[in-house]
């Protein structure tokens, strides 16, 4: 087990597309151990994706059980070849990332998702999740597609979305 070096922006490798995992073997277990160690080494880090340590496979670990005020969650999740098959609702939340030190910003994510992913043994699982956990999963899956939260930033201000005012056409 080892704490691996985290790739940080603007490292071009963070833009790479990760490949699906095809073999569930001991090497995969080793990768999962290292990833978990690395996640735990980060301060308050609720998730990590394999490409953040230069391993371009579709592997994500999420665990929001230690985050304050998060009541609904699935505990420690190993998500391999994850796919969001359904989503609902949108919410703004603040995110940061081990790969973008010293910066946080607002990002819009789906509020509720249905997720399918293989577990560490290769068994396909289905999860229904919402809120903070759903946000964490979306943040990590983005890494697998070469995206960072800074690619999705929305305005820091104006949370109360202003309605666009249309000029009324005077009646003839």
């Amino acid at each position, binding site marked *: 087990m080892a704490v691996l070096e985290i790739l940080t922006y603007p490292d071009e490798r963070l833009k790479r597309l990760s490949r699906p995992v095809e073999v569930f073997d001991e090497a995969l277990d080793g990768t999962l151990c290292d990833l978990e160690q690395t996640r735990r080494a980060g301060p308050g880090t609720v*998730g990590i994706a394999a490409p953040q340590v230069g391993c371009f496979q579709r592997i994500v670990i999420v665990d929001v059980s230690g*985050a304050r005020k998060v009541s609904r969650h699935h505990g420690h999740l190993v998500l391999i070849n994850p796919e969001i098959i359904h989503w609902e609702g949108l919410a703004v939340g*603040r*995110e940061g990332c*081990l790969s973008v030190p010293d910066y*946080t910003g607002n990002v819009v994510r789906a509020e509720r998702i249905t997720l399918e992913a293989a577990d560490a043994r290769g068994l396909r699982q289905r999860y229904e999740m919402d809120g903070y956990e759903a946000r*964490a999963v979306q*943040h990590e899956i983005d890494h697998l597609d070469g995206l960072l939260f800074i690619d999705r930033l929305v305005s820091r*201000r104006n949370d*109360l979305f202003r309605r666009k005012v249309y000029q009324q056409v005077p009646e003839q």
Partner: protein
Amino acid sequence: MHKWYMLTLVGQDRPGIVAGVTAALYEGGCHLGEASMMRLGANFTIMLMVRPDGDLRSLTQLVAPVAESMGLHCHVDAIEGDLHQHVLPDVRVTVCGADRPGIVATVTGALAEAGLNILDLESDVAGTDQKPIYIMQIEGVAREGAEALESALRIVAQAQGIEAKLSAIDTLIG
């Protein structure tokens, strides 16, 4: 050793101010740090961290002509502090209601007493001249917990006849 200065510019807004000012700073050998530009009441306003090649005098001499050419008031302060000093807010307070004097003072007074350290405040007067509404958004750190702020906010909102909402900011680090 080079240090940071805070450059403040205020004046009537028009297109091209940021580009004009920052071009002059760049050509004069300055580094830029954190900045916040806002349009307030049709005015251009910016506060900009600048690390010049020289001292306060040379920075002022560099900025003054470009500020003057764009009709801007210019002010430079030597500052303490540096980059990478971010503090994460953990609460957001939203206040709205019919506009009248005293909302900011009473609300922030009650919040300060209940332990809020304000990191970011933005407010606006919307509605119409006849019926102005006041909207304020604050982000900060609840040093004595969110509950203390919540009860302080409830009391002041009721007394002032305004709406006030406190929500947690749980920053996700992934």
